[in-house]
């Protein structure tokens, strides 16, 4: 009896438990509502390449962007104890830079003005710079992360528009669309592969560098980590820069999807989803220990939720309302005060059991 209990507790304690439960919940809900949700069909697309389609694929597809952002957001949260709300705007900027480099001056080029990889690297650098900007404000000027990133949150999309002086460049080059959609012959959407690649890189980084240890140490106890020779400021900035890289990757996917950009709509409200993913992954939003896997699962759960809502014909603009409810529930449940209250309650309950 005791033993079972302990095993059970181990499962429950695992950080991945909460998001997985949520996932399970959604799956069950959809099974009941309409099993057709899980139907996956293999069909040829216009180019005559076989591709998979169906809601699950959509989740894999769109969820990947979120997962990539969740990686960076988790680090930022852990190190700085706050969240970056400018990622959406940053994506717009990175995307705009990408297109700028690809299109050069003419907004409707017949051929690419630069190799995609070069363009991507440039946008990467741009995104990292903006990340560093946020990081410096947070680490050296000691501004709360969310306020500091508010600056970019405002200016970002404007800057993006400014980079292409408000034109809407369109890339006609078909190979550019591979990143956002399908590589001919592979029926699974490319973003998923990109996401997996990012996950692998992250995993390696966490394994073969001290990223995890340093970040957590700084997040948990600054003064002590300083006495152990770490430089908290640098670590924080680093986390923001890493997030920048993630942003650049997402920007590539986003832009490649539609082969153009819409400054005011691209990656709209994605910051909310990313934060939500981190929270859903059971990571304390006040920083400290983090569990990357949980965040990533969280990201896919969010997308699952989104897609489910879509399926039930919820207006895309109305989605935030539902997510907001989820956030509130999450934070309330994880609030220390509430937890104490629960603890007290359950203790009483146990007593009654015993009696």
């Amino acid at each position, binding site marked *: 009896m005791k033993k079972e209990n302990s095993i059970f507790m181990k499962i429950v304690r695992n950080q991945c438990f909460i998001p997985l439960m949520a996932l399970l919940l959604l799956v069950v809900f959809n099974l009941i509502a309409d099993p057709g949700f899980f139907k996956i069909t293999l069909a040829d697309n216009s180019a005559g390449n076989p591709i998979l389609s169906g809601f699950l694929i959509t989740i894999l597809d769109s969820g990947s962007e979120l997962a990539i952002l969740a990686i960076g957001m988790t680090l930022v949260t852990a190190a700085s104890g706050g969240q970056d709300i400018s990622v959406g705007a940053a994506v717009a900027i990175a995307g705009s830079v990408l297109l700028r480099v690809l299109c050069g001056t003419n907004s409707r080029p017949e051929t690419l003005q630069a190799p995609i990889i070069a363009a991507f690297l440039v946008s990467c650098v741009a995104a990292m710079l903006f990340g560093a900007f946020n990081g410096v404000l947070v680490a050296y000027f000691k501004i709360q992360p969310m306020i500091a990133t508010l600056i970019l949150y405002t200016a970002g999309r404007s800057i993006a528009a400014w980079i292409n002086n408000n034109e809407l460049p369109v890339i006609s080059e078909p190979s550019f669309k591979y990143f956002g959609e399908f590589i001919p012959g592979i029926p699974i959407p490319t973003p998923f592969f990109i996401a997996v690649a990012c996950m692998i890189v992250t995993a390696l980084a966490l394994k073969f*560098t001290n990223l995890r240890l340093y970040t957590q140490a700084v997040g948990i106890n600054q003064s002590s*980590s*300083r006495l*152990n020779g770490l430089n908290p400021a640098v670590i924080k900035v680093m986390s923001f820069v890493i997030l920048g890289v993630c942003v650049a990757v997402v920007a590539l996917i986003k832009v490649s999807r539609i082969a153009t950009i819409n400054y005011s709509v691209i990656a709209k409200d994605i910051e909310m989803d990313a934060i939500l993913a981190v929270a859903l992954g059971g990571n304390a939003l006040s920083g400290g*220990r983090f569990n990357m896997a949980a965040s990533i699962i969280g990201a896919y759960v969010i997308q699952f939720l989104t897609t489910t809502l879509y399926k039930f014909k919820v207006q895309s603009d109305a989605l935030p309302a539902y997510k907001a409810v989820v956030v509130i529930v999450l934070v309330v449940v994880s609030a220390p005060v509430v937890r104490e209250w629960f603890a007290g309650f359950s203790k009483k309950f146990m007593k009654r059991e015993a009696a």
Partner: protein
Amino acid sequence: MRCGKKVKARTALFFGNFPERIWEVEVKVKEHVVLEMKNIHKSFPGVRALQGVDFTLRKGEIHALMGENGAGKSTLIKVLTGVYGKDEGDIFLEGNEGAVSIHSPQDAQNLGISTVYQEITLCPNLSVAENMFIGRTRGIGQNWKKVNADTDKILKSLDIPAKAVQQLESCSIAVQQMIAIARAVDMECKVLILDEPTSSLDEQEVEKLFGLMRNLQDKGVGIIFVTHFLDQVYEVCDRITVMRDGQLVGEYAIKDLPRVQLVSKMLGKELDDMSDIKGEQQEYERGDGAVAVLEAQGLVSDGGIKPFDFHIDKGEVNGFTGLLGSGRSECVRAIFGADRVTGGTVKMNGREVKINKPLDAMKNGIAYLPEDRKVDGIVGDLSVRDNIILAQQVLRGFFKPFSKAAANKIADEYIKLLSIKTASADTPIKSLSGGNQQKVILARWLFTHPQYLILDEPTRGIDVGTKVDIQKLVLKLAAEGMSVTFISSEMDEMLRTCSRLIVMRDRRVVGELTAEDLNQNKVMNTIAGGDR
């Protein structure tokens, strides 16, 4: 506006009926007791903080409450101010029938017990007057004209150099401190507790403060004065109550208790017992030409210490002694670069080195076990393993992490070596007992294989067994050629382990004791500042 009237009444207490007050002060009936605490018991899990302590405070006296930390004086005060509830015992207060019950700071205030803490608990961004009166009256409105006028009166009556309308943060710390006191006094307090009010003041500021205290004393307020500065005690106090290990040592009139006596009482070593503990430490003699492992000249930091010289040799164990707040921790923090070093030079093995931040020190083979374990030591949520490898990991650099296996091996090794009691290497350190947490930190620094190890209060709040372990360990390390600086509030520990003691008082080095000087009396005399 109700508050307005109150204020009038209260200020009358200062001006209106002065005569009989003076008369009272003249007579100063010896047994005119304001506060009496009888047989107070308080224990926390694992610790018996207070064991049957009695305390008596008379009207219009300044009463020093002395004791090294862990003696239980802060606990006693917290019980008195209702921060902690007491397990046993009674508190009697003048003008209250029978024992009073104090459950919250508010209760204490209503009963006329006010406390002024070391760190000022006023709002710097409000005006003086607002600080005096905010949070004391119900209702929305406030006649600020009147409040300002009253405030000015009070400030004048206690001759505090501040204006009611001036913003608090534009006052000096001392004045802020005084305003805090003024507020406390103004709330009809019989008992005023000053918890280390002077620790952040300079001489003349302290003087001002004492002026105010005497002023209040004449007005018949009983003052409990907690401080670590002996001179100050002997300057203002009438009586002293000494505590040690949660027990009452005794209550003395100031004139019956010379400083040396006081120190010995605080440290719990009778002067006359000449059995001075001969430690197992080898005699320290400095062979000429021996190059110091670390030598500091005129080192000074923004931690608020006077410049000091310091050196330590290979295999030597020395220590900074002195009462708490005498600046011993600040010295080592300066050496380690934990505080910003503002002057002085540091040589290691004869070679001059720049130590501006902890990492520099670590690179030079210095390790520092900080005084405040919770704040500066442990990384609470991390596992024991990560806590052990942290420092070394930082030294190795970002791209050379230990493999999980290696880390585990190291962790287990040190857990065994220091016999750390933990469920596993994966347990978060915060769930360990204080002693074991301390051992983990120790392990962390030993793993960096330093040539110079600084231990600041490694044995604070730790069970006796562990204490002994740590002392033994220190000597062992020294024997292996490591230089160790050891700081502890416990005299005999220091005597047992250190072969040389640097004695500090009031933030400056006042003496250095070696060989035959290493005995209780000498040390205490030096701490107390000569046989005055």
